[in-house]
């Protein structure tokens, strides 16, 4: 039976947007009769297991949030721990098929493209078959919207999971559809510029700042002169 090693690279572990998305992909994989082992890289014991499990796996799906336009530090640590697998591949040993999920806070896919290029080359470096990278922006929608609102996304992810199980790779059309917009169109730029000036757009931050009693301190700049627009 096909088994999938599902790795969650979010520092938020079980409470992350990444695992919510990865679980839907896993559902699709299971529909095709496969099994799944899921590990959180942010948990030390699971990190160690993820390193050994990589060598034995047939297919690995590594998901992560975009952190400062790249992978979170814990994901880079994991990639560095795979260094012996580069030598192994050169010595003729097989590495698993490798697919990725990169999901970001900003809505445009453009932010994630440089790290996607890196991940594709990482697969090549490991001599792994590259299954593709699922890119999805607008992580806030996962965090602050009801489950129902993301129904279409969950369905898209299940289909991608089925494709991974069936074809060993994601479908190009499905990857394109789930990534959505590469960049904002001129009209959206105009509307978004206006929207950013409305308190509503920033309301989730304001709500949290107020709940925490630090609203007055929201523009604090502990190390130098604060920005004044």
């Amino acid at each position, binding site marked *: 039976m096909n088994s999938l090693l599902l790795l969650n690279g979010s520092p938020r572990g079980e409470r992350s947007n990444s695992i919510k998305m990865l679980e839907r992909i896993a559902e699709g994989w299971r529909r095709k009769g496969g099994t799944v082992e899921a590990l959180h890289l942010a948990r030390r014991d699971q990190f160690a297991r993820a390193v050994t499990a990589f060598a034995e796996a047939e297919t690995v799906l590594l998901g992560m949030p975009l952190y*400062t336009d790249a992978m979170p530090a814990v994901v880079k640590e994991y990639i560095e721990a795979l260094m012996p697998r*580069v030598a192994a591949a050169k010595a003729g040993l097989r590495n698993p098929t490798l697919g990725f999920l990169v999901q970001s806070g900003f809505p445009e896919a453009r932010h994630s493209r440089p790290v996607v290029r890196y991940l594709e080359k990482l697969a090549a470096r490991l001599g792994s078959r590259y299954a593709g990278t699922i890119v999805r922006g607008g992580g806030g929608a996962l965090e602050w919207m009801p489950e129902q609102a993301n129904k279409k996304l969950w369905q898209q992810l299940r289909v991608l999971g089925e494709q991974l199980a069936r074809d060993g790779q994601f479908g190009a059309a499905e990857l394109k559809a789930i990534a959505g917009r590469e960049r904002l169109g001129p009209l959206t730029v105009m509307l978004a510029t206006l929207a950013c000036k409305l308190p509503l757009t920033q309301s989730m*931050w304001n709500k949290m700042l107020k709940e925490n009693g630090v609203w007055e301190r929201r523009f604090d700049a502990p190390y*130098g*002169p604060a920005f004044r627009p």
Partner: protein
Amino acid sequence: MNIAILNGDSEAASPFQAYLLKLSQKLKDRGHTVIKLDLATLNLKGCSGCWGCWVKTPGECVKHDGSATVRRAIIDSDLTLLASPITMGFTSALLKRAADQMVPLIHPYFVVEGGEIHHRARYARYPLMALLLDAGEQADAEDIEMTTAIWRRTARNLKTRLAFTAVASRDAEEVANELTLVA
């Protein structure tokens, strides 16, 4: 000018460490104030994605670790030099740990800049950034280019820009001259 060097090499006695010492001296010789932070000694706890730096202790990481030293050095500098070996095709996990904890330097509010969604600045000014990479034996020109492309975006998100990328196979004298020119 004030130069902050963020040293992302975790190996204590590497040739790259020696190169950084030489480069720091050459920069001092040119009249610059240089602060070199060895990230490996700072006990960086890393980002857990809690958003505390934006909504609980605005501008500060809730962890109160060595990352505060990094943020202060960045804001105090005119130029921040990100120095790291390339491992598995990208700068070190250690430097990335420091980068993840740079998020307190910006503000959560969304803004549109250059046709993209970004976050608002928190500080009135930010230093220029530059990359210094030790390509070692593994990294090729494409790795350096891809690493630069990622950091160019990161610099932009940190409200500044990446002035240039240098590799440590180049003469330290030449790199010191170039760094002096950009700022």
